[in-house]
């Protein structure tokens, strides 16, 4: 029987899966950070480019300040950044020196664990990123094996990759990432066994989404084959997020494994996210039904519903099934990209254009062109040669291919000046100026957040605007409020 450690993904992947990555502000994270630090998680899946961009764009908060303050509040738990290795915040590929600067600043501000997620499994690119991360001083570097179902992605495929990661001195451990929740218990047995053998002692972690209800069960099987299981807490678990931590711990212990966490605090963390979800009217993840068709098309619910809506707007809803068939065709022709953002959207868009247009690949979105140009890395399988020629022959392809290379930090300094900090430079280089200006103008982020206070504050906001009342009482279970207005306001009305 094994001792299993946990990595919690609530703040990043949970937030992204269930709340569009926009559900948490700095204050809400800092409020629960001390308790999360004491649970005994090995690490938190804490931030990514996307989340740092959201902080600036949606909340006018400094993402670097957020990392620093979280690090201060959490001396015992590793904070993880996850990235592809070739871009930061913007969709454009960055210069390697630029990425080195990103990694340097992440480490200085408190990140100590980084996942290199190359969705195309370009091992050379991953190894290079790992080297840069090590140079930046990252303590723990994780190589990701992104799970998908296709002719190409068999156990041998993943074992080969694992072997290469095992041989890389800059990769400390590996995790199997199953973003669509496709990994069945049976496949988990053979896959994890093969990967573990190939790793020859390097630790292995499993991260599997609950999208079709498989991962909670898969985890029970995986417990004998991995060192770490990744989980989420309370409202941020289940749904298309990861399994609920408390349930996973109970199941593991039931099977005789040990998990060294503070159960009381784990409960408090879950409870906090539940109360936060309620206070902010955010959805809670719930256990999902098993949908076997998902194993075939692998397109997440959100993308499916968007595609259906787009067809409806074009008065072509009956063509939906044809589009789903075309999705399989396009995916094969593009070399089986793993259906993790942005590829499901990309493949669906192309399938849609192919079905509603006069000819297949007559219309090709920029993202697909970039993909074929190799901007996202080398695909696992070959791109169909006819499709490749067709796409690269487009005039737009020539334009995109001719784009100048990404600027180096030195070149960016010339553009933005030498007086701003590296952190500010990295933001100005990748985000609209007015957004960065607004972030700076709004000053330090708030640091406290009490879920229960929100409804009271909202009520007071509402009451503050009323001119017609003298006195008001609100009574509901657990809350009672009385408010009295200045007498003049009634006289005036």
């Amino acid at each position: 029987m094994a001792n299993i450690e946990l990595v919690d993904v609530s703040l990043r992947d949970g937030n992204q899966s269930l709340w569009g990555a926009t559900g948490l502000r700095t204050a809400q994270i800092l409020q629960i950070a001390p308790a999360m630090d004491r649970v005994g998680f090995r690490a938190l899946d804490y931030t990514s480019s996307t989340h740092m961009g959201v902080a600036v764009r949606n909340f006018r908060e400094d993402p670097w300040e957020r990392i620093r303050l979280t690090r201060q509040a959490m001396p015992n738990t590793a904070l993880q950044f996850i990235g592809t290795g070739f871009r930061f915040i913007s969709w454009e590929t960055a210069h390697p020196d630029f990425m080195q600067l990103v990694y340097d600043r992440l480490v200085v501000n408190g990140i100590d664990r980084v996942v290199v997620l190359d969705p195309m499994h370009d091992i050379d690119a991953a190894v290079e990123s790992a080297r840069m991360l090590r140079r930046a001083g990252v303590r723990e570097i994780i190589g990701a094996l992104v799970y998908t179902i296709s002719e190409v992605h068999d156990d041998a495929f993943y074992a080969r990759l694992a072997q290469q990661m095992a041989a890389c001195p800059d990769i400390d451990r590996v995790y199997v990432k199953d973003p669509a929740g496709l990994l069945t218990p049976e496949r988990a047995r053979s896959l994890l066994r093969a990967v573990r053998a190939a790793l020859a002692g390097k630790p292995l972690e499993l991260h599997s989404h609950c999208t079709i209800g498989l991962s909670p069960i898969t985890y029970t099987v995986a417990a004998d084959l991995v060192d770490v299981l990744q989980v989420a807490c309370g409202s941020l678990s289940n749904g298309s997020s990861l399994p609920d931590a408390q349930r996973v711990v109970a199941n593991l212990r039931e099977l005789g494994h040990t998990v060294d966490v503070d159960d009381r605090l784990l409960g408090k963390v879950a409870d906090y996210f539940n109360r936060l979800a309620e206070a902010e009217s955010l959805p809670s993840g719930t256990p999902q039904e098993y949908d076997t068709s998902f194993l075939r098309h692998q397109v997440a619910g959100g993308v499916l519903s968007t595609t259906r809506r787009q067809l409806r707007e074009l008065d072509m809803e009956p063509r939906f099934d044809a589009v789903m068939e075309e999705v399989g065709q396009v995916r094969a022709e593009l070399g089986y990209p793993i259906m993790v953002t942005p590829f499901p959207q990309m493949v669906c868009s192309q399938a849609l254009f192919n079905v509603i247009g006069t000819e297949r690949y007559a219309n090709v979105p920029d993202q697909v062109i970039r993909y074929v140009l190799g901007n996202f890395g080398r695909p696992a399988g070959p791109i169909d040669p006819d499709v490749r020629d067709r796409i690269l022959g487009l005039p737009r392809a020539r334009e995109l291919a001719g784009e100048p290379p990404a600027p180096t930090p030195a070149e960016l300094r010339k553009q933005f000046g030498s007086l701003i900090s590296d952190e500010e430079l990295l933001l100005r280089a990748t985000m609209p100026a007015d957004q960065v200006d607004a972030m700076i103008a709004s000053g330090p982020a708030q640091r406290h957040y009490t879920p229960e206070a929100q409804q009271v504050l909202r009520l007071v906001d509402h009451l503050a605007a009323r001119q017609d009342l003298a006195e008001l009482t609100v009574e509901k279970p657990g809350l009672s409020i009385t408010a009295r207005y200045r007498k003049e306001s009634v006289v005036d009305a």
Partner: protein
Amino acid sequence: MLTPEDIRDLVRVLDSSSLEEFQVDMGGLSVTLRRHGARGDWTRESRVTRQPHVLEASQEADTREAAGEEKVSSGTGATTSSARREDVHPITPPLLGTFYRAPKPGAAPFVEVGAAVEADTVVGMMETMKMMSPVHAGVAGTIVEICVGDAEFAQPETALMLVEVRS
């Protein structure tokens, strides 16, 4: 429970309104905020209403609290007032359910007032979700009071009977 920072946030919003008094009662805390004068400065009167949770080891002390004060909630739940006497022991049910005084309807009750009992004497039956379990006296002594009647519902902290403990 609202924190001092939350209350300051509240006052900030209140200050820009025409409200002059605001009271909120929530999570074991009651706060009254009042505006004074045109300058819009505020006072707070806070009361923590949550009851202390005293750990079992020190239960004797809390039962000695002055009458008229709110009852302090303790680790094992409330006890009846007669049980404060150290020589009288309450018999409580293992689970909530329906209490039966006899083995079956029409049969004689297990015990009456005055009966001598040992710790393992069965004094009644509890029916919980269609399952019957015996209720034992728990101490050696004499039944001095029967508090719950036949076929009445009882919670785990209810005294079913009182036993005067044999010294």
